[in-house]
């Protein structure tokens, strides 16, 4: 509380909005930076990964058969 006299110098109706606005702006910038530099926030927003994972094994099982079928006529 060593700054408790600040509001005798800085008008609260100016200082408080500035302080809260700065926190909000910083938060937006950091979230934007993480969104821009990673893929997992976009993936989280995209969602639907759990269905894709469930589906993937099913496709994997069929894959070899279809490959063989397609490969043989090519010779």
């Amino acid at each position: 509380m060593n700054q408790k006299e600040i509001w005798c110098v800085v008008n609260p109706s100016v200082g408080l909005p500035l302080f809260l606005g700065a926190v909000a702006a910083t938060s937006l910038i950091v979230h934007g930076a993480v969104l821009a530099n990673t893929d997992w926030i976009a993936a989280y927003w995209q969602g639907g990964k759990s269905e894709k994972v469930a589906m993937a094994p099913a496709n994997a099982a069929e894959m070899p058969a279809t490959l063989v079928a397609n490969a043989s006529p090519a010779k």
Partner: protein
Amino acid sequence: MADLNDPNRVWPTGLTLAESEELHKHLIDGSRVFGAIAVFAHLLAYIYSPWLH
């Protein structure tokens, strides 16, 4: 209307030291609540996202 000639008022804002301290106390309490929520959010991000793994 507050007495503007009150010797306890400190200028330029005209608040008394007690008013300034009371306001600052609320600001610090609010910042602590914000900090606690932020720590919890970072914990969730660490657990459920690839961050730092």
